């Protein structure tokens, strides 16, 4: 899928998409505005916090689409809203907290039911004593199913990375794979997921040689 030959959105390639100013509606997304607006990814040194580095901005790229650019931009914005709602509800937001189900607000009821069974893999719920979570990378590549130029479904190939602050240490979480979305009753919703969650915990070890 060569970017140039397959109609990649220049808007997406040229710079990080500032989806947030266009985000509307739900409380979750409004929260996303507050949490995610601003900077491109910074280095991941130090634990996140109110005064720490900002969250990464969601970067969205459409691949393999022959849709008109105006249509593509609108679709990217709509799907970005769904992805933002998931990221905020599942990982970001205020800590400490116990409720991560909000991450599935934009899932179909059937997908949310399945996701609850996978909640430890799909959210930060499995961590204890979390003080903050910061997004260090939020990249998504979208592939739309658009018969007769009407988009009805999409795959969002995501590459998300987070720093999870637990006490004095930081755990790095990477989430990659695919979210499957459909236009259900006029609204985009996640109806499926196939995600790999990779948690790496760097434990300092001293090697004494004297």
């Amino acid at each position, binding site marked *: 899928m060569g970017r140039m030959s397959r109609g990649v959105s220049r808007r997406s390639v040229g710079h990080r998409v500032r989806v947030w100013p266009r985000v509307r509606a739900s409380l979750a997304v409004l929260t996303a505005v507050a949490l995610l607006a601003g900077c491109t990814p910074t280095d991941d040194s130090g634990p996140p916090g109110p005064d720490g580095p900002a969250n990464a901005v969601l970067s969205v790229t459409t691949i393999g689409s022959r849709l008109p650019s105006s249509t593509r931009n609108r679709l990217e914005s709509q799907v970005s809203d769904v992805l933002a709602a998931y990221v905020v509800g599942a990982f970001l937001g205020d800590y400490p907290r116990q409720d991560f189900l909000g991450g599935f607000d934009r899932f179909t009821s059937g997908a949310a039911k399945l996701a609850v069974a996978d909640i430890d893999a799909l959210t930060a719920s499995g961590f204890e004593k979390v003080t903050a979570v910061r997004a260090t990378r939020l990249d998504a590549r979208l592939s739309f199913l658009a018969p007769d130029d009407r988009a009805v479904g999409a795959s969002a190939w995501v590459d998300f990375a987070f720093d999870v602050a637990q006490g004095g240490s930081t755990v790095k979480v990477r989430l990659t794979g695919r979210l499957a979305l459909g236009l259900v009753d006029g609204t985009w919703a996640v109806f499926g997921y196939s995600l790999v969650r990779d948690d790496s915990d760097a434990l300092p070890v001293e*090697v004494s040689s004297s």
Partner: protein
Amino acid sequence: MRRALGLTGWVLRILPVVVVLLVAVPGSAVRPTSIALTTVQHAEGYDAGGDVVWVLVLGSDAPPGTSIVEGDTDAIQLLGIDAGTGAAAAIGIPRDTYVDLGGEKGRINVALRTAKGDPALVAGAVADLVGISPDFVLVTGGQGFEAMIDTLGGVTVDSPVAFDTDDGGMHVVKGPNHFDGEQALDFATTRRAFAGPGDFVRSANHQALLLGLLNQLQARDDREGFVEAMALASLDGIDTDASPLDLYRLLNALTAVDPDQAKGCILVGEESQDPVGNFVVLPDSVLGHQLGEDAVDDATFDQGCEGSP
């Protein structure tokens, strides 16, 4: 206790070696390093519209240039998919199965043509046989079938037997065979090569083909844009009462099926003749309802396929 003492002894034995090495290595000092402990989890689930979605897949023999609903549906498979558990069940219904077609008896393979393409008649006949009403009906013809196979990059089918195909004379070996679209259609349509009611074996071959397609789909579903390309090819090659979104969700659900949990049974029956002497199969209605009741809620055959070939 012996293990603890053994470990202590081992440490004492290598300690001098470690000390010599540490002293001998110039510039050695306290050097922090790190050990990365990684936990990897894979989570997968698809909402296909219900806990178990049942799809009636029909293969039409309509010649090129005609509507696929004008042909006889010589391939009839009722597929159940439980995307939550990854289980899948296929109930194969031989084309000569003698059923009620809206007040008249006839072979099930003419039901779609008789109803002028309305899938309700064939779906109702299947429901009578196994007690499961399909959520969707998909009809594919030869050209659409070949195009879908080619979009997938061909298909590898594990044939239970070796045989020569009816039309092309292609030799199929027992075990894995890789087919392009045309060869896969040749494999799927062969029936005269088999002894007895050839459609029982052919129906089993259709299930082997479906399993091959599932494997091929899953071998490629990690490629960006592939599922959407397959959905588009399916929309071009299939006549269905499912919406494009329904079909897309279904295709996604198939990517989550565990091939090891995919099982097929054939609804067999007795050879007979209809009143005008045509060959028909009188279905084993007890077996049909047993298979349906067994699989309807979880897409598994806990009681096996007793009676199937």
